């Protein structure tokens, strides 16, 4: 009806926001800026950034057995694995070289899903910027290896579920080993379903 009414109502909305931004909590019209370097948002547990390799006791023998399933399944083909060989050229179940090209990886999490040995998981730190594009952003094995309790630290519930499942498999294998199994064929590693 009155020509300027809609404009006035709009102005009142911004004025309300101007006033409430001084004393209201963030989600009811208050300030919701988080001043990044000093204050940070809490990292959400399931957040996935670039992958990392898990090792149980010492970095020498990680859980990864260099089966290259993740390298084949990775949509962007950013993982390169080479098997380790002991002195007399017999391939060992351990990766000698495990490179992930961070610039190519799109952190989709498929390697985490397809890995049958629970050895590769998605990491949390996202500040991986570096000055040199080629060399520093190609993560080698020792940059990727992180301990299991680090895994527990960043993803408590998920790591706990994984460890529970692994312990269950251990008991079953031990109980199977105690009772000599007829077929003599070692029980196939039971693939862990997602919780």
């Amino acid at each position, binding site marked *: 009806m009155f*020509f*300027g*009414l*809609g*404009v006035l*109502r*709009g102005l*009142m*909305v*911004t004025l*309300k*926001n101007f006033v409430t931004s001084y004393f209201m909590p963030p*989600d009811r019209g208050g300030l*919701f800026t988080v001043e990044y370097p000093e204050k940070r948002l809490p990292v*959400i547990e*399931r*957040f*996935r950034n670039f992958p990392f390799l898990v090792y149980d006791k010492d970095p020498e023998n990680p859980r990864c057995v260099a089966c290259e*399933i993740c390298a*084949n*399944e990775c*949509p962007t083909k950013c993982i390169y694995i080479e098997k380790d060989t002991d002195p007399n050229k017999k391939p060992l179940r351990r990766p000698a070289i495990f490179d992930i090209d961070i610039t190519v990886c*799109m*952190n*989709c*999490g*498929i390697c985490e*899903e*397809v890995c*049958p040995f629970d050895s590769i998981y*998605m990491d949390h730190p996202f500040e991986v910027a570096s000055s040199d594009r080629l060399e520093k952003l190609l993560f080698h094995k020792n940059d990727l290896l992180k301990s299991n309790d680090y895994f527990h630290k960043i993803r408590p519930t998920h790591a706990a579920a994984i460890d529970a499942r692994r312990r269950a498999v251990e008991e079953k294998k031990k109980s199977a080993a105690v009772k000599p199994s007829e077929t003599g064929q070692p029980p196939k590693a039971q*693939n862990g*379903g*997602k919780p």
Partner: protein
Amino acid sequence: MPKSYTVQNTDLLDTQTLEVNFGPQHPSTHGVFRMFVELDGEVIVTLKPVMGYLHRNHEQIAENLTYLGIMPYTDRLDYFNAMTNNLGYAMAVEKLAGITVPERAQYIRVIVSEFTRLINHLSLVGFLLNDLGAFFTPILYAFREREKILDVFEEISGSRMMCNYLRFGGVKCDLSPAVLETMKKITRNFPKFLDEFEALLSKNEILCMRCQNVGVLPKELAVNSSITGPVLRASGINYDIRKVDRYSLYDRFRFRVPLGRKGDTYDRYYVRVLEMRESVKILEQALQDIPVGEILNPKTAPFAKAPRNFKPPVGEDYGRIESPKGELGYYVVSDGTPQPWRYHIRAPSFINLTILEDICLGHKVADAIIILGSLDIVLGEVDR
């Protein structure tokens, strides 16, 4: 054939038309999109969209990947609503391979795609107002609400925008009770935010002046140019694939489809605001009676571990869903191997651009920008 706009002034003043390129780096084309515009003074004489700057041959990449490997790529099609892209692709492959989806997973899928619709319409209205000149205020209010929803997506799928959350036969992870609670809280406060947003915008005289009777899309041109989504419904045609195909659980929820009458930019804006209100209704009902149960069809669980042996039978299928931008269709041809033979995406933004020239003719330069904004195109989907 687009009707051409004849230059009217025939008197002795021989004004030549001014060719201007609203180039790939223009502040208000949403992404790398170029419009070659011929101007007679302020009025547009011809307008030729030029695209392909973001073309990465997504469909050929998909032909060399396994079915599961394609899923993270579908996030990057229409990078505003990754979840509905996943849903479209997952449903097409499930129809092809004959996989059923358990009840709880269907509910999660509906909840997640309705949240994506909210995000998309919010950002569109924000960007439209930004083109109109409101200095970032509406878009920051919209993004404040969008942040809450993106945090929920990060909670459940691990990443805010590139979710890669759906699997054939269900979803990747379950919703914890805490997440359900935050979802309910978001849907409770959303109408209150929408009222404030509408108070700021809908009755604003300047917005009405700039958007009403601008870029009118007649009904028969819309149908003939296979326009879909809110742009079609703003012209008054009742065609919402959620109601037509009744896919997943949409026949279980009571919601209505808003239709405009004139089909101009204001109708396209307001139909999306009404659609947001309907989506909130669906979300309330879905969050209300979401059952407890498994979230992944046990038959397809092993394929998560070994995508190589997921081989759908030989055949082809065209699955389509109502994505926030229109009808998003996936045409998948399988030849029995773990890699699709042909994989085509029917992108709504790409086809909605056919009428850009028709509805821009005769308008001024400032209107062309807003009309393009109201068509809601995203270049990831247009160029594929």
